[in-house]
C-alpha cells in the first residue's frame, strides 16, 4: 500500500465511522446505467438548470426588481435621460457596466432556451420509446409538470427586465387572465395589484422567478431523479437485456466521468452562445410604456406555439348578461393548451387502459413497433409545429416575401388537416418499417452483389443477418387487441357498452401490426 492509499483509506474510514456511508456508497456507486446517446438528453436539461441557478444568482446581485421610476444616466447613450423603471435601468447596468454582466445575462437566457429545448427532446425520447409505462407513470407526470413550470418560469424571466418586448408579453398574459369568464378581471386585478401595469407586478414575479419556482424545480427534479434511481433506468432491447436486468456501465467511474464531462460541455456550449450571439438586446427594445409596441413582438420559442394559436384564432366573442366572453383568447390561450397538457399528463393511463396492459416495462419500445403511439406523437408535434410557425408569421412573411394573411390561413386550415395527415402517414411508415424488418429477418441483407446464373438469370445475393440483429428485430411483443364482450355468458348486455365499444375499437387500432418473423417462418423459407 502506498502512502497515498494509506491516507485515502484513513480518510474514508474516518468518514465511514461517523456516517456509515461506506455501505451505501458501495452499493450506489456501482449502480449500473445503460448507455445510449438519447439517455443524455435529460442530462442536458439538468445541467442547463444548474447553469441557470449559477448565472441567475449572479444576476440577482445587481438586478433591482422595482417599477419605481428612475432617470437613466448610465453608459448607453441612446437612452440617456429617459424615464424608466429601476428594473430596466438595473438590467442596462448589468449589460453595460457590470464586468461580465452582459455575458452572464446572455448565458442565462441561452441556458433557459436550451433548458426548454432539452426538456422537449427528452420528453420526445421518453414518449416515443414508451418509457412512461408502468412503473414510471408518476415520473412522466412530474416531467410534464417540469415542462409546464419551465414555460412559466421562462416567461417570468423574459418579463423581468421591463423592456418594451417583455411588457408587451405581460400585457398579453394579462389579456389571457382577463379572458377567464367571471373571475378574469378580478384575477388580473389581484395579480397586478390594480390596473395594468401598476407597480406591483415586477416585484411579485421576481419573488416567484427566483424563489418559488426554482424551489419547486429543485424539489421536482430531485424526486424525478430519485425515481429513476429507485426504478432503475430503462434500456433499449438487445441480446442479454431483459425486463429483469440492466446492462450498462457502473456509475463509478464511467458515468461519473461522462456526466461530469458532459456538464462542462453543456456549460461550454452555453457560454459559447452567450459570447458570440446576442440574445434579448433589451437596450434596443427600450423601456416599457403601455403606449408603445414593436412590429414582430414575439415570445421566446417555448411560448411561440401559444402566441401562434392566439394569432390564428378568428375574432369570436359572445355577450351574456352584460359580460363579454372572448373566445378568441379563451380557446387558444387556455382551453386548447389545457386539453393538450392534461392529455399529455394522462397519456400513460390512457394507453394502459386501451391496451389493458398492467405489467411493468423496463425494456424500451422501438417507435415503429407501436405505430399508434408513434403516430399520435408525430400528430401532436405537427400541431405544435404549425402553431409555432404561425407564432413567427410576421418574421416569416417579411423574410420569405409571403403575406401574413396567407400564413394565417395556411395555419388555420393546416392545424386541422396536417395533424391527422401526419398520423396516417406515420402509422403507414411504421408498418412499412415493420415489414422491412420482417423481410430483413427472413431474407437477409441485400449485399448489392449480382450473380448471373447458368441459365442467364440475374439474382442478388442476400446475406443472413447476425443473430444479435435478428434478436433485436424480433424480440418485441405483439399483443392482440382486447376482446371485450358486449354481453355476458347468459346473453345479458354488460354495463358500459359504449365505453367498451370505444375501448375495443381503440385497442384494435393500437394492435395493428405486421406479424413479426417467427422461427416457423424461417424454417418454412429454408424448405424452399
Amino acid at each position, binding site marked *: 500500500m502506498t502512502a497515498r492509499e494509506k491516507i485515502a483509506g484513513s480518510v474514508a474510514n474516518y468518514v465511514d465511522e461517523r456516517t456509515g456511508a461506506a455501505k451505501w456508497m458501495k452499493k450506489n456507486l456501482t449502480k449500473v446505467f445503460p*448507455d445510449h*446517446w*438519447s*439517455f*443524455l*438528453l435529460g*442530462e*442536458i436539461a439538468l445541467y442547463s438548470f444548474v447553469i441557470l441557478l449559477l448565472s441567475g444568482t449572479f444576476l440577482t446581485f445587481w438586478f433591482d426588481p422595482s417599477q419605481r421610476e428612475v432617470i437613466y444616466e448610465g453608459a448607453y*447613450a*441612446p*437612452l*440617456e*435621460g*429617459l424615464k424608466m423603471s429601476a428594473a430596466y435601468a438595473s438590467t442596462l447596468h448589468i449589460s453595460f457596466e457590470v464586468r461580465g454582466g452582459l455575458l452572464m445575462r*446572455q448565458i442565462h*437566457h441561452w441556458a433557459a*432556451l*436550451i433548458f426548454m*429545448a*432539452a426538456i422537449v*427532446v427528452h420528453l420526445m425520447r421518453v414518449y416515443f420509446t414508451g418509457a412512461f409505462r408502468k412503473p414510471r407513470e408518476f415520473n412522466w407526470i412530474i416531467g410534464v409538470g417540469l415542462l409546464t413550470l419551465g414555460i412559466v418560469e421562462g416567461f417570468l424571466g423574459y418579463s423581468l427586465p421591463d423592456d*418594451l*418586448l417583455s411588457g408587451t408579453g405581460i400585457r398579453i398574459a394579462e389579456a389571457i387572465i382577463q379572458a377567464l369568464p367571471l373571475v378574469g378581471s378580478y384575477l388580473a386585478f389581484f395579480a397586478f395589484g390594480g390596473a395594468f401595469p401598476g407597480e406591483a407586478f415586477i416585484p411579485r414575479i421576481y419573488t416567484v422567478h427566483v424563489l418559488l419556482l426554482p424551489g419547486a424545480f429543485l424539489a421536482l427534479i430531485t424526486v424525478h431523479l430519485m425515481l429513476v434511481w429507485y426504478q432503475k433506468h430503462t434500456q433499449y432491447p438487445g441480446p442479454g437485456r431483459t425486463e429483469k436486468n440492466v446492462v450498462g*456501465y457502473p456509475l463509478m467511474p464511467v458515468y461519473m466521468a*461522462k456526466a461530469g*464531462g*458532459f456538464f462542462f*460541455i453543456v456549460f461550454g*456550449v*452555453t457560454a459559447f*452562445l452567450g*459570447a*458570440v*450571439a*446576442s*440574445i*434579448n*438586446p433589451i*437596450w*434596443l427594445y*427600450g423601456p416599457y*410604456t403601455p403606449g*408603445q*409596441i*414593436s*412590429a*414582430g413582438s*414575439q415570445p*421566446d*420559442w417555448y411560448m*411561440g406555439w401559444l402566441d401562434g394559436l392566439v394569432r390564428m384564432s378568428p375574432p369570436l366573442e359572445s355577450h351574456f348578461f352584460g359580460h363579454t366572453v372572448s373566445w378568441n383568447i379563451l380557446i387558444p390561450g387556455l382551453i386548447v393548451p389545457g386539453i393538450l397538457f392534461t392529455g399529455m399528463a394522462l397519456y400513460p393511463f390512457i394507453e394502459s387502459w386501451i391496451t389493458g396492459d398492467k405489467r411493468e416495462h423496463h425494456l424500451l419500445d422501438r417507435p415503429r413497433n407501436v405505430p399508434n403511439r408513434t403516430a399520435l406523437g408525430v400528430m401532436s408535434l405537427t400541431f405544435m409545429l404549425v402553431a409555432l410557425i404561425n407564432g*413567427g408569421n*410576421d*418574421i416569416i*412573411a*417579411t423574410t420569405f416575401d409571403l*403575406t*401574413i*394573411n*396567407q400564413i394565417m390561413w395556411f395555419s388555420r386550415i393546416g392545424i386541422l388537416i396536417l395533424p391527422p395527415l401526419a398520423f396516417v402517414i406515420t402509422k403507414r411508415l411504421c408498418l412499412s418499417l415493420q415489414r422491412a424488418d420482417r423481410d430483413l429477418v427472413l431474407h437477409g441483407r441485400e449485399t448489392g452483389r449480382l450473380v448471373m446464373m447458368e441459365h442467364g438469370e440475374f439474382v442478388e445475393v442476400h446475406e443472413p443477418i447476425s443473430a444479435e440483429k435478428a434478436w433485436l428485430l424480433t424480440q418485441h411483443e405483439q399483443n392482440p387487441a382486447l376482446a371485450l364482450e358486449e354481453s355476458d355468458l347468459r346473453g345479458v348486455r354488460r354495463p358500459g357498452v359504449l365505453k367498451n365499444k370505444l375501448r375495443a375499437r381503440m385497442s384494435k387500432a393500437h394492435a395493428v401490426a405486421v406479424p413479426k418473423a417467427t422461427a416457423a417462418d424461417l424454417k418454412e423459407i429454408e424448405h424452399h
Partner: protein
Amino acid sequence: MAPLLLALALFSIGTTFSVAGAATSTPLTAAERSALIDEGQRIFLKGCSSCHGLNLEGSAIAPSLIGVGAASVDFQVATGRMPVADMSQQITRKDPVYNEKEVEALAAYVSSLAPGPDVPGEESLNYERNGSTAEGGELFRTNCAMCHNFAAQGGALTQGKYAPTLMGVTPRHIYEALITGPQSMPVFSDKTITPAEKLSIIKWIKAAEAEPQLGGASLGRVGPVTEGLLVWTLGLGLLVGVAVWLAMKAR
C-alpha cells in the same frame, strides 16, 4: 494684438460659413428655374405621363400628382420606387432610374403646377446639431416601431405589404417619407411631430444603424424568432452531437 487676431479669426470663420452656406442654397434665377421646369416636363411626359396623365391628373392605375409636392417626387423617384417595376403588392426601393439632376427637374415641374411639401434643404436636415438621440428613440418607439420594428429593421403589414427597413435610407428621404406618407405610411405633419422631433428620430435611426453588435452576432435584430432558431439548430445540434459522441466512445 490678441483681440485683433480673434476678431480676424471670427470674421474669417463667419465669411467662410456664409460663403459655404450660400453655395448650397443659391436661389435659382427665374430663367434657370423655368429651364429646369421645362426639362422636368420633358422627362415627365416621356417617363411618367402614361400612368400619371399628361397633366398630373392620374389614371385608373396611378394617383393624381396634383399637390403632392417636390418632397414626394424626390422620395419616390430618388429611392428608385418610381418609375415602378412591379405593382403587385407594394412599390419597392431599387436603384434609381433617374440621376439627381433629373429628379430635381421632375420635382420642380410637378411642384410648379400645384404647391406641396418641399424638399428639405441641407440646413433643415442638420440632425447631428438639432436632434436628440434619446428623444428620437422615444418618438420612434411611440410612432414608428409598431410597423418598422424596434430597431428599424422593418416589419410585416397585411396582405403582403410591409414596412421597409430604414437601414441605409438617407436622412432626406426619411424626412420626406415623414411629411408625405408614401404608400401605407401615414403623414406625420409638423403639428404631430415637429421638425426638430423629426430630426431627433433621424438621429436615433442613424445611431441604431451605426450601433455595433454589442452582444455578439445581432441575429437580424428581429427578436426571439431567430434566437429560437439558433438554439434548436446550433445549440441543440452541438449538444446532441456531443451526446452521440459520448455514448459512442464507450463501445
